[in-house]
């Protein structure tokens, strides 16, 4: 499905501020995999997301989808395969446009955009049905401006917009980190349901250790631009937060340092 082969990325190369974001990172995702990603500050988690989605181009290495090298495609070209939810609840939706208009934009993913109407009666019915999955009543507010929604509602909508066209890969970039605990829990539950229902291949970065263990079928840990630990499903089932922190210390020789970490 998704392959990342020996990908490296430097920031500010050749200057005193040179920083290694990724060095020879390898990762292979099978269809239906739901991988959670944890790691310390500056481990390269976000860079990994940006390189997969095409926001950044790797300095070396390849990103492949279904064996096809997509390293040279732009973000908008890759969007036909890749859905993404950002950390910032404001980032995934257009505030001055209505809920149905936002959904129409998401609905056009991977299709050619022409001069046909974005919101039609037929599409509105689809949007209503899809919004019901969220269970927060947005299906009755189709023409409301998205800017009027709360952060939690906006993130739920972003999640639906990223998933309902069933992209081959779903990237979740700490998408619950900016929400209060109750809303974060709602989004986490929704994520679990949507990913399961649509059987999406998912890569999720999180700061919540407990969440990283609970969700998904595989867990990877990153440090200094490399993947240092890859926990398969069988081992992940019995893993605890304490064990995970211990493993990190053994492998990297230091404590897991993350100012936003949540042990769960």
């Amino acid at each position, binding site marked *: 499905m998704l392959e990342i082969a020996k990908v490296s990325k430097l920031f500010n190369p050749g200057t005193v501020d040179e920083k290694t974001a990724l060095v020879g990172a390898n990762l292979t995702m099978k269809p239906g995999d739901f991988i959670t990603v944890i790691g310390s500050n500056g481990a390269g988690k976000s860079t990994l997301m940006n390189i997969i989605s095409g926001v950044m181009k790797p300095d070396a290495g390849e990103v492949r989808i279904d064996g096809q090298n997509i390293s040279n495609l732009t*973000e908008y070209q890759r969007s036909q395969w890749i859905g993404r939810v950002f950390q910032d609840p404001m980032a995934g*939706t257009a505030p001055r446009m209505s809920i149905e208009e936002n959904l129409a934009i998401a609905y056009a993913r991977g299709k050619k*955009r022409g*001069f046909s109407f974005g919101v039609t009666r037929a599409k509105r019915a689809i949007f209503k049905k899809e919004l019901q999955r969220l269970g927060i009543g947005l299906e009755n507010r189709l023409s409301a401006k998205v800017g009027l929604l709360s952060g939690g509602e906006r993130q739920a909508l972003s999640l639906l917009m*990223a998933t309902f066209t069933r992209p081959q890969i779903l990237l979740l970039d700490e998408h619950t980190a900016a929400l209060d605990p109750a809303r974060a829990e709602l989004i986490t539950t929704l994520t679990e349901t949507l990913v399961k229902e649509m059987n999406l291949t998912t890569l999720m970065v999180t700061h919540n250790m407990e969440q990283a263990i609970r969700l998904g079928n595989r867990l990877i840990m990153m440090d200094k631009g490399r993947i240092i630990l890859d926990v398969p499903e069988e081992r992940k089932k019995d893993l605890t937060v304490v064990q995970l922190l211990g493993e990190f210390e053994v492998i990297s020789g230091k404590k897991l340092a993350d100012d936003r970490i949540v042990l769960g």
Partner: protein
Amino acid sequence: MIASMQGAVESGLLYALMALGVYITFRILDFPDLTVDGSFTTGAAIGSVMTVSGTPPWLAVLCAFVGGALAGTCTGLLHTKGKINGLLSGIIMMIALYSINLRIMGKPNVSLRGKENLFDNVSTLVVMIIFVIIVKIILDLFFRTDIGLSLRATGDNSRMIRSFGANTDITTIFGIALSNALVATSGALIAHYQKYADNSMGIGMIVIGLASVIIGEAIFGSKTIFRATLAVILGSIIYRIIYAFALRVEWLDASDMKLITAVIIIFALVVPSSRRVWKQKNVARRRTAEMLAKLDKAQPGGGR
């Protein structure tokens, strides 16, 4: 008086297309495009030169539309592909167009007297009302299409629309081209209306366009695209009415109008934002008073 009112409404409708163009870049794309000052004259130049050489006026106006679109495309390319700051790309194109417009006209001004005119034998008012309404409806419908939605999203949240597969470079260029096409059309219509084109007629046009957008939105609101485009058209008409009144004031000159326009815009920009701050302060003060009162009730004597 009535004649001058009718004249004000007529020119308001003629300039409304330019205001709609400014609305597209300024509000929808969130791109302050200064190309307008040049492309307005480009439209007037193409419209008048072609008419002088015997082209049917409607075809000349259509060519002005295309010329404006080309100018806008250049600004869009400078900004997206050349990575030049938005304001600067507009200014560069504006200055380039100044020379290009002179080339098109061959001299600083062209008279259309005695030539075939778009508004011969018809009521300018009626023709313009119909034309502006048609343009408005087409724009409203366009902004509901898939391309229209992605254009609006480009101005609203470009990061989001990229992650859904729209090429924001293309939508930006398209939007700026459409905007300047409307501006140039307006220029060509004005040239026919006043029966001459002048190389300096576009100066300050962006500010007049902005004033129309701001006045219209302040009075008629901008909740939906339908409402906003209507507001911009009415804003343009109101601006021309204010202009007509200003001309009747004895101690004001026609040349003072640019200063008046600037003052209108400053007011329209400053008043709503300071009113918002003031309102928020009041609400905050009231809410804290309420909360403190509640606390006092729960713990009489401040809980000492």
